[in-house]
């Protein structure tokens, strides 16, 4: 019993470490006071100021467009890669598999500078296009492992059966793989979307002055110091992330029970 108590206390302690800073941030976003730590009463003032900041809205809009486009394209490419890795034995399969893992492990900063050199040599101007290409690139491996992880639980005979009935690989893809995989695809899409919305490291190198995105905007705001508006902004983003996580976890769970 004593051991049980110690374990529970330990869990609580670590979870407090995870959540207290975020909780404090959220609490202060509702505090009327501008500078002091003291509680000067509940207020939505900072949310109101956020709402009026048009520069911020532009950055939010840019980030959403970028996130949706890069997540969608990355899901497409990642899906094709996962299906190929699962279904075919081809030359370089191990290499492809290894490359996907190296890309996940590769520090963002190295990916950032390598793409910066690529874009500068190939004269791609830094802005929306360079950001889109970079975001797709760092999202693809995450889609591959999410989708591939689900495909492993497939019954292989389903493909044999389809082939015996005369289906070619396009039909198998459309009529069998897509319907079975959509929850994993959606989970991969959501992960990519979140990665794209949160990325600072890579975007920092490949962004241009003409196309401001939310994470870089927040970074420059934070560097200037603490302001209650940032608390409010971070709270909004945190709640948004929370909804995405819960939604995608449900999807994955549903996806697993589907195969059990």
């Amino acid at each position, binding site marked *: 019993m004593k051991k049980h108590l110690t*374990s529970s206390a330990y*869990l609580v302690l670590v979870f407090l470490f995870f959540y*207290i*800073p*975020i909780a404090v941030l959220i609490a202060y976003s509702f505090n009327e006071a501008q500078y002091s730590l003291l509680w000067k009463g509940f207020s939505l003032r900072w949310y109101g100021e956020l709402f009026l900041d048009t520069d911020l809205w532009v950055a939010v809009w840019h980030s959403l467009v970028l996130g949706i486009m890069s997540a969608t394209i990355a899901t497409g490419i990642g899906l094709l890669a996962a299906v*190929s890795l699962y279904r*075919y034995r081809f030359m370089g399969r191990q290499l492809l598999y290894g490359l996907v893992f190296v*890309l996940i492990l590769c520090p963002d900063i190295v990916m950032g500078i*390598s793409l910066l050199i690529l874009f500068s040599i190939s004269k791609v101007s830094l802005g929306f296009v360079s950001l889109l290409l970079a975001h797709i690139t760092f999202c693809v491996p995450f889609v591959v492992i999410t989708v591939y992880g689900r495909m492993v639980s497939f019954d292989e005979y389903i493909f044999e059966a389809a082939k015996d009935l005369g289906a070619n690989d396009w039909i198998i893809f459309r009529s069998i793989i897509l319907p079975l995989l959509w929850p994993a695809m959606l989970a991969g899409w959501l992960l990519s979307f979140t990665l794209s919305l949160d990325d600072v490291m890579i975007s920092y190198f490949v962004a241009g002055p003409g196309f401001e995105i939310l994470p870089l905007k927040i970074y420059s705001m934070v560097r200037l110091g603490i302001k209650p508006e940032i608390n409010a902004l971070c709270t909004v983003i945190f709640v948004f992330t929370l909804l995405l*996580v819960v939604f995608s976890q449900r999807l994955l769970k549903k996806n697993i029970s589907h195969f059990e």
Partner: protein
Amino acid sequence: MRTIKIFKGTPMHNGNSFKFFSLSTIWLWLIIFSLIPYALVTLASFLSHDETHLIHLPFSLSHYAELSDPIYIKIFQKSFYLAGLSTLICLVVGYPFAYIIARAKSSFKHLFVLLIIIPFWTSALIRTYSMITILKPKGIVNSLLLWLGVIDKPLPMLFSDTAVVIGLVYNLLPFMILPLLTNIERLDNRLIDAARDLGAGRLTTFRKIIIPLTMPGILSGCILVFLPAMTIFYIPDLLGGSKSILLGNLIQNQFLITQNWPLGSAISIIFMLVLIALLVVYWRSTRKERQDLL
């Protein structure tokens, strides 16, 4: 009948055109946006630069030679030290945590795992910012300590190496816990029982059975924490003082401030070599484990 009709109705592609399409898409993408860029970094590290050109011929090894300057060696050392310390703290804090959760009743487990995944998905920048609120002179930690009477004036925690380590641990702990959790969950309880039956004490069982069997999880957790810890430039930038220049900040400066791309590339290449060495160690140790299981 209906399905057969649909299959017949579609034009007969070569059965492998789908395979060709998928494989060429993924390979083209990875070659253009990963392999070529990495090759370019390697190439750039051997080139020269001047005020008008970011990179140009002739080839030179001067940037690697420049790295032997004590200033750079110190930054490498400090980055290794702070990243290593953060990794160690993550391991020591994360291992028991993952162990308890892996063995929790399954009804709670889903909730616990969700509670770790949420910070994992939350923007690291936002979490770093929340740390500033906690650590600043009038922040919650100092206020609490003052109120408790432990200290009589605020501790200057922010803008120090301590703050950087706290920030790194705070951000990267989920990356340690998740692989450990997956690994510990797969642990075969019978092996632990067997060890205990054969007279091994708690400590011996832990040292000789549990640790070796969870080594892949430990190693992947350490890699997932250590590598970003060396390079996340915004954590030292926001939490560290002006002296807290780590590897990530150094590379960032070479590319965006002093515009010395070849030097920045050379630093990255050295760093990548360290990364590759770590991965080889990881790959070897998991291979050994696989063989032991067979």
